[in-house]
Structures are given as C-alpha cells and as structure tokens.
C-alpha cells in the first residue's frame, strides 16, 4: 500500500512545482500587458496620479473631516492639534491618532488646512472609453478658416493606417514564403554544382543587419522611381525575410521521408509536380509557422516602412500612425495604451488561427519516427 502511494505523492509534488513555475512565468509575462490594458481605460490624469493596480481593492487613507488650522499655532515649532503633537514636517507626513485615524496637513504653513483621514478599503472604478474613441475616431482639432472663424475638425483615424498595414503585411508575408519554399526544395532535394556554397551564403546572410542595406536600396529605388510605393516595401521585406525563411523551410523539407519522393520519381513525376503535389501540402505546418513570424515582424515594423514608403497619410502604416498619435512633443502618450491594443488585435487573431500549425511546425522535424 504504502509503497504504491509514495511515487504518487512524489508525482503530486512534481506537478505542483512544474505548474507553479509555469504559472509564475505566465504571470510575469502577462502582468505588464494587463497593466497596459487597464491603463487604456483610464484618463491621463488617473494614469499620472495612481498606478493601474489601484483598481483592485486596497486600503487607502480617505478623507473623513477637514478643518482650518486652529488659531494661534506656530508652524515653526512643535504643535499640538486634537491631542496629537508634532512638527510641521510630521504633520505633512501625517500623524496617526490613538483611535486609528490620521491627521495630515494639506498646503503650506500659512494657507494650510488639516484633514482627518481614515484607512478604508477602496478601489478606483472610474473608467473611460475616451482613449479608444480618440484613437479610433481621431482627435478633434480647432482650426481657423480664412475668414477668421474657428471650426472643429476630426483628425486622422486608425482605419486608413490599418488597411495600409494589411496591404503591406500580407504580400510581404506571402511572397518570401513562396520564393523560400522553392529555394528550400532546390537546396534539399536537387543536385546541382555549387549547391552547398550557395546554401552557406544564404545562411550567412542571416547575420547581416538590415540597417546597412537601407541607403543603397533607397538609392536604387529612387533611380527606379519605386520609392513611396507598396511594391518597394514588399520587395524590401521579401529580401530581408528570405534568408531566415529559406533556412527554416530547408530544415523542414529536408526532413521529409525520402521514400515518398523516390517513389514519386520512379512514377515519373517532375520536380515541379513533386513540389506542388507533395512538398507544399506536407510543409503546411512549417509554412504556417514561418508565416506567423514574418507577419508579426512586418506588422510591427517601423523602420523599413519609414524609409521606403514614408509617413504620408495615404500610405502610412499603423506603427507610424501610433507613433504620430502622441503629438509632436509626446503630450498624448496616454493614447499609446489604447493604440497598442487596437494594433495588437490582428496579430493575435493571426496567431490563434494558425497556432495549431505553429506548434506542429516547431515540433516537426525534431522527432524522427
């Protein structure tokens, strides 16, 4: 009996340890996001003056009674107010009375007043949708017309930038995957001279930072009159994404069972038929997991879009719109919270819809069987 019970107990401890650690890691990762989410529903003043956690029930000193400073007190010496003694600095900090309340001096020595406060359970529940309204519908600005009257106009909203981001992100994801899949098949299953050398040079490109390519590419785009077009940024993202895509897909396609391909060859299938009928369907998990990577990278990209399509309102992408939203000097930083969550919606949707492929893609190739 006891011998059978012991391992079960050991397993329980192990489970608790593992789950506890996992829970802790998840909490560490998600709490900041939760904080941003909560802050996105609070006014700028609230964010400035209290932490987002103050929406949770907590104990705080709350005003019970307020009265003027009694006559004849000298703030520069030790004072006695309602049976409590202390200096001005002590009262500024707040002095606890024997019955559990607190006397606190508000204001300066000449114009101050005394508040009686009590420690009570409280939570802040003042939420607002104003941040989201401003982000989604645009801020309103006052403008002067040539005849001198003042009109109010609505600023840019998110919709155009959201569509622009889609326009950039989808082809910039699909094009490199298509090219990389062909390349990966070629490197994995076709024999031609210089194959190894070419593959090594592709992998070597992984370590080249894209920043060094910005100026030369832009020079070429200016010559080709491509700058500021979506095609420019699609090509740029394709180029920057290809090495990683080729390398990932190569690893996956290489691990496909040789038998299937050989039987296809014996049946007289061409390389193209094998690629479209066998390789592509079998590689969906790898393609999908790379698609997630590339889509998130392009969606969150600021630099490449800034350089190649610029910030003109009719072509600017979401990241640029969010950066602009805070104003020239950053006075509307509180809108970033709401903006971040709106821009997060699509990547989250992409991730969750492709998640099952993603996990399969990570595992695939790791276990031979």
């Amino acid at each position, binding site marked *: 009996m006891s011998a059978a019970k012991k391992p079960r107990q050991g397993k329980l401890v192990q489970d608790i340890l593992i789950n506890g650690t996992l829970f802790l890691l998840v909490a560490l990762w998600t709490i900041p996001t939760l904080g941003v989410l909560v802050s996105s529903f609070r006014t*700028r*003043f609230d964010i*400035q*003056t209290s932490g987002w956690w103050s929406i949770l029930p907590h104990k705080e000193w709350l005003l019970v009674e307020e009265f003027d400073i009694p006559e004849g007190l000298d*703030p520069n010496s030790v004072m006695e107010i309602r049976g409590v003694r202390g200096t*001005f600095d002590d009262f*500024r900090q707040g002095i606890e009375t024997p019955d559990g309340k607190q006397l606190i001096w*508000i*204001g*300066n*020595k*000449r*114009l*101050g007043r005394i508040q009686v406060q009590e420690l009570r359970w409280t939570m802040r529940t003042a939420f607002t949708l104003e941040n989201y309204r401003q982000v989604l519908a645009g*801020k309103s*600005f*006052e*403008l*002067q*017309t*040539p005849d*001198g009257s*003042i009109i109010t*106009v609505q*600023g840019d909203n998110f919709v155009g930038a959201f*569509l622009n981001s*889609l*326009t950039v992100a*989808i*082809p910039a994801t*699909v094009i490199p995957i298509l090219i990389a899949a062909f390349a990966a098949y070629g490197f994995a299953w076709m024999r031609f001279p210089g194959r190894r050398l070419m593959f090594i040079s592709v992998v070597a490109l992984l370590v080249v930072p894209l920043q060094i390519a*910005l*100026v030369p590419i*832009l*020079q070429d*785009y*200016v010559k080709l009159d491509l700058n*500021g077009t*979506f095609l420019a940024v699609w090509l740029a993202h394709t180029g920057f994404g290809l090495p990683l895509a080729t390398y990932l897909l190569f690893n996956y396609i290489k691990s496909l069972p040789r038998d299937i391909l050989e039987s296809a060859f014996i049946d007289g299938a061409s390389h193209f038929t094998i690629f479209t009928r066998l390789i592509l*369907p079998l590689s969906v998990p790898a393609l*999908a997991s790379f698609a997630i990577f590339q889509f998130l990278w392009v969606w969150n990209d*600021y*630099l490449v879009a*800034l*350089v190649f399509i*610029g*910030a*003109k309102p*009719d072509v600017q992408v979401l990241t*640029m719109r969010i*950066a*602009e939203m*805070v*104003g*020239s*000097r*950053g*006075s*509307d*930083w509180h809108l970033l919270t709401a903006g971040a969550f709106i821009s997060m919606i699509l990547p989250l949707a992409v991730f969750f819809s492709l998640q099952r492929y993603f996990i399969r893609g990570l595992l695939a190739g790791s276990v031979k069987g």
Partner: protein
Amino acid sequence: MKSKKSLWLIVGALLVFTIVLSACKPAPAEEGGEAGGAAEGGSYYERALAGEFKGTVVTMTGPFTDEDAVKFNNAIADFEEKTGIDIQYEGSKEFEASISIRVEAGDAPDIVDFPQPGLLGNFVQAGNVVNVLDFLGQDYLQQQYNQSWLDMATMEGPDGPIMAGVWHRFNAKSLVWYPKKAWEAAGYPIPETWDELMALSQQIADDGDTPWCIGIESGAATGWPATDWMEEVMLRTTSLENYDKWVAGELPFSSPEVKKAAETIAEIWFNDAYVYGGRAAIATTFFGDSPTPMFEDPPKCWMHKQGNFITSFFPDGVKAGEDYDFFYLPPIDEQYGKPWLVAGDIMAMFNDRPEVRAVMEFFTKGESIKAWLGTGGALGAQQDVQLDWYGDPIERKIAELVQQATSFRFDGSDLMPGEVGAGSFWKSMTDWVSGSVDLDTALAEIDASWPK
C-alpha cells in the same frame, strides 16, 4: 486535405484583396503642365498667385506630426487654393534619422523643416541646400525678419556662407509658469530680478513647500531641459559674444563662464528644499509630467521654467490666465539686459524649382502662419505678424515681450553639432544632476566629445 485547400483559398483571397487595396490608392499627381504664357517678372510668390505654377507639387518633411501637422496644413490651405500648388507635408517622429537617409540616397524632399539648425548645418556643409539669397533679396529678408533670425540662418557652405533657410514658427523658452489662483491667494510677488527670484524661492520653502517643479527625463533625449537652463543662465551671466563663441565651440565648457552658469543652476537644483521630489527626482521625472503637481490643490510646487509649448502638457481643463500664467525668467546681471532664449523651425530648400521658390517666399510672410496663430500652438517669426492674430492671450503676451526683447539667441544645444547638442551635452548634464559625476568631469566630457 479540405482544410488545406481552404487555407490556400484564404491566402489567395487576401492577396487579391491587398492588390485591390493598393490599386485603390490615388496615383501620384502628375507634374503640372507647362506654365506657358504667364507674366514674367515679379517675385516667385506673385507669379504663383497669378497661377503660373498651377498643378505643381512641392514635397515637404519635418518632425511635427498630428495636431501641429493638421494646423500647418490648414494654415497653408488658402495659399494652395489660390495658387494651385499642392504642398504635400509628411511629418515623421523619426525625422532626424530618416532625413539623413533620404538626403544621402538622393531622395530629398523639396523643403525640409528643421527644428535643430545644427542638423541643417551638416547638410549645408555637404552642399545639399539651396541658398535663399539666390532668389530673395537681402533687403526683402531684412524687412521680413529681425536681424538676429537672419544671422542664425547664415551658415557656412562649401563655397562660403549662405542663407540656409527661412524661419517659420518659433517658441520662446525664457518663461516661468506658475499656478495663478493659488499664487495670488498666497500673496507671492512676481520676481523682477534674480535676487528676488531666489528670495521668493526661499520664502516658498519657508512656507513649507517646494518652489520648483523640475524634470528632465525625455527618453533618448533625457537632459535637454537642463541644457535650456544652462543657456538661459549663460545669456544672463555673460556677453552675447561669449554665448556665440560657446555655441560655436570656441569657448570650452570647462571655461569659468560656463562653470559659473552651472553653479548658478545648482543653487536651485541641488537644494532639496527647492525642488519637488528633491535633486534625486529631477533626472527621473518626465519633463511633460513635471509641471502637473503645480495644478494640485494646494500646489505641491509653484514654479516651472519651460517653453510656451509646455501648456499642451498641462492637465485638461486648466485655463490660461486664470489657473496659470507666466513671468519672464529674471535677469541675473543687469549689464546683459533682458535676453530671450528662443527655438524655432527653419525651412530649408533642397530642390531648386520655381514653385519651390514660391513656397519658400510664402513662408517668409506672416500670412503663412496666420491661421495657426489663431488657434494657438505657434508663434510667428516674421515681422509682419500682427499681435491681434494670436488667438491665445498667453501667446500674444509672449510674442509682444519677444518683440520688445533687447536681444535673443537661439537654443544653443540645437545649434551645436549633433554629437554635442543632441548627445554629450544632454548626457553629461544628466550624469551631473543625478550625481554620478562631478561638474568638472561632466564639463570636460562635453569638451572631449566636440568633433575636431
């Protein structure tokens, strides 16, 4: 198998969708037709108003975005309508980085708005910038601008000095903001001299409050408000010649003049009884949030020195002239008068075409900023700006004071080379304020970073 087919279907549909999206974008406007037959002669501005450049496009870029960009576009809308020139402004938060890339790649916009003349100086040196005097007369410019502005726009090009651009809007920095209602209730006086300012600081401290709200945190630009303070005190404790030499790198930071300025600031900044949160809080408080305690009831701090743009950071609902007001940061040494520290946007021209010249000339006229002044957020640098154009009484008052100023100088850190003015000066001041290095080391570090 079915699900895979539908996946490809979705991918295909999305691709078609985005191609349609990108096709929907308006095609870039064609270069306008020939302006044949229009009257020759007259300035480019007049020729533009006569419709000679109808249908042309002038591209612009600059650092201001959002509300400022909307107001700028509104201010120039009337000109665009009358002339048929389409001015396409493109604001970017990463302007400093992107303009260098674009100019280097040969993709410079026609006109660029520089808030930091030091950065423009680099392009002038490289010979990228068109000399304004090529098409605008010296006499005309002298009539449109105070001489100080013209001096500040003159920069050294590869073939001698050129007028690198024209000034558009500016902001004034020598302002101390205070919470008016509480201020009057407490009976504090407006200080007229530095001694009065220090006495007032002591009086507020004696009353049990901290007089100053100071914060210099600003992300990668942390420390810039400290450089403004240095410049203010430099203008008030030494001659304009010395200030200009200092900005040009001829008067080192380790000289007694600069050191004295820093020590003057330290009397306020490093006195924990004078600064809200104490010296330790200065480097960690966001500059935009630092005046907020001034608007609590009762105020936690009473004075905040910052340019006129800071009002956009004040809490929602506080009213100019009622809840807050400003006074001029008092002079220290009487012999140097009442100098003003200003900053502003200079418009520089990178591509020379007639319509671009017309737009540049337009910017030298108060007309180009009039509608902006009406709703606040800018001050006009042009001489023909009328005080009654200002819709904001505070801004009108500032503009009036600057007009009467005995002298003014541009924000020194914006004129210094980027390595110093947007680098070591910020960083070393922050290190000094946070106490990680002493003053001599900090100043020596700035000197060492000056490009040879």
